[in-house]
């Protein structure tokens, strides 16, 4: 997880005090609209010792009432707020966050972006999201460092080959560009791989050339800046402690900063979805478990694609800083501690060392965990709830970073209009109806 607060997260005050170094007070003066980031802005700030950058978003105190409240300032919550404003003109919005913005799973993931899912509703929303990532830096005027370097999912058993060939055919029909490639092509793309592993040789791979990675914190920060610019209130260290209802209709929320009213409530709290549902008096088909990741010491560039090995439970990419970013499987039992089991790390690293022998001497620098919200079919929930005007977006489990823009798009449409073609199939009632969107076979571990 990265630290908040590098230079690029600040915006610029007006040039009233261009002459000389502005005093500290002027930093608190906030323009009505943000200034664009550009090469020119860097030059201008350079000329005045970088003293003019202002905060990227305003910290606000809650008002009494909002048209819409979003609980959870992770990527999905912020994207929901952003599209409420941008696509539907709903800008009297507050985003409430119990900790700090982007401090949940959005700041803890391994940033893999892909859309090579098997089922049509999944391919639709994940590909929508992936395509929005392509222009996100321009759209938000914020560098999210989207890097479509290609994502490769290794087939290491005969049935994985069949599974991925099937997915490649499904993707062709869905208009998602993927192909099944040979072990030789895998070796060309990833010279450091050992394709002749004694236990699990590489038999081919599902390859999505426009998949890749992005800078996770920047995605949250970029949306936050755009939301703040539309006049929305981002309220951190404000925990929702209760959902107030009149019968079956939502009235607002109780928080550690007092009661706040709203017309519509969007709950987007990942691992804490069950806790929020409990406040509103219903249950969800969700279990919260720990998922971990780790990074190595930085080394010279050696792998410029993302490799996922689902049979052996491990995946790896190299960050721009040179660290090998590694993740594995989730724990099997409920947990809210953001710490996971040691043996999962051992399992993951053991598997990857066989496939990438050169990493065996690497030192690992950091390890961390996030609490992921798992559904039975491993697909998300974007849905109305038993409480009128309360909506929920959750169940992204181990793989929702890639979905952030598409999910926000769909959730905002659902909240504004009562329905969204992208979200239709993802209701919380699909389980009772037996209409699963079964990605659990297609993506056993995958993120």
């Amino acid at each position, binding site marked *: 997880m990265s630290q908040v607060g590098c230079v690029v997260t600040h915006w610029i005050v007006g040039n009233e005090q261009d002459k000389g170094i502005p005093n500290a007070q002027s930093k608190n003066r906030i323009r009505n609209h943000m200034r664009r980031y550009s090469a020119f802005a860097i030059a201008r700030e350079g000329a005045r010792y970088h003293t003019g950058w202002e905060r990227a978003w305003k910290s606000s105190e809650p008002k009494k009432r909002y048209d819409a409240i979003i609980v959870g300032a992770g990527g999905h919550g912020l994207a929901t707020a952003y599209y409420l404003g941008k696509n539907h003109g709903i800008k009297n919005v507050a985003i409430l966050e119990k900790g700090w913005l982007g401090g949940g799973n959005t700041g803890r993931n391994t940033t893999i972006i892909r859309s090579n899912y098997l089922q049509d509703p999944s391919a639709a929303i994940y590909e929508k999201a992936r395509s929005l990532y392509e222009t996100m830096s321009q759209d938000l005027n914020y560098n999210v460092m989207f890097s479509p370097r290609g994502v490769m999912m290794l087939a290491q058993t005969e049935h994985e080959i069949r599974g991925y060939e099937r997915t490649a055919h499904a993707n062709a029909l869905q208009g998602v560009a993927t192909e099944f490639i040979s072990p030789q092509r895998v070796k060309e793309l990833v010279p450091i791989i050992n394709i002749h592993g004694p236990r699990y040789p590489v038999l081919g791979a599902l390859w999505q050339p426009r998949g890749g990675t992005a800078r996770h914190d920047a995605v949250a920060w970029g949306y936050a800046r755009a939301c703040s610019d539309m006049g929305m209130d981002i309220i951190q260290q404000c925990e929702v402690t209760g959902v107030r209802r009149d019968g079956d209709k939502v009235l607002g929320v109780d928080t550690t900063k007092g009661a706040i009213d709203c017309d519509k409530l969007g709950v987007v709290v990942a691992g804490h979805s*069950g806790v929020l549902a*409990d406040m509103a008096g219903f*249950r*969800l088909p969700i279990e919260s478990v720990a998922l971990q990741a780790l990074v190595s010491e930085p080394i010279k560039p050696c792998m410029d694609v993302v490799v996922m090995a689902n049979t052996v439970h491990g995946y790896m990419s190299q960050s721009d800083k040179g660290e090998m970013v590694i993740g594995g499987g989730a724990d099997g*039992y409920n947990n809210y501690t953001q710490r996971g*089991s040691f*043996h999962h790390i051992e399992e993951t690293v053991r598997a990857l060392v066989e496939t990438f022998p050169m990493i065996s001497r690497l030192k690992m620098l950091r390890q961390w965990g996030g609490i992921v919200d798992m559904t039975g079919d491993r697909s998300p929930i974007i849905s109305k709830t038993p409480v009128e005007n309360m909506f929920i977006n959750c169940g992204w489990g181990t793989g929702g970073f890639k979905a952030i823009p598409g999910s926000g798009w769909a959730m905002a449409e659902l909240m504004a209009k009562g329905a969204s073609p992208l979200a239709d199939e993802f209701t919380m009632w699909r*389980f*009772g109806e037996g209409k699963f969107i079964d990605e659990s076979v297609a993506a056993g571990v995958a993120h």
Partner: protein
Amino acid sequence: MLLLECPYCGAKCEETELSPGGEAHIKRYGPGSSDQDFEAYLFMRENPKGVHFERWRHVYGCGKWFHAARCTQSLEVFGTYAAQTFEPPQEIKDKISAKRPGWSWRDFS
């Protein structure tokens, strides 16, 4: 790392010796039950932040299923008990009450 004591063989197991079996004390609804009960039985979960009851199996030991009472917020283990029961024994409930006064979980408290 979780350490649970198997109530049958008394082994103090590290979690790799065990296999997690999900939420405990779920009433199994079958044919003839309402759609809602059947859905709840199959899919709906407590998923609490705090006191929780689970099924575990001593898979690399005596092979038997048992129950555990844990806190999902602190990973504290309150105790383990046999599988042949519809609700946690009083002794376990008392242990939890001593540490988490006012706790409740479904209909238990």
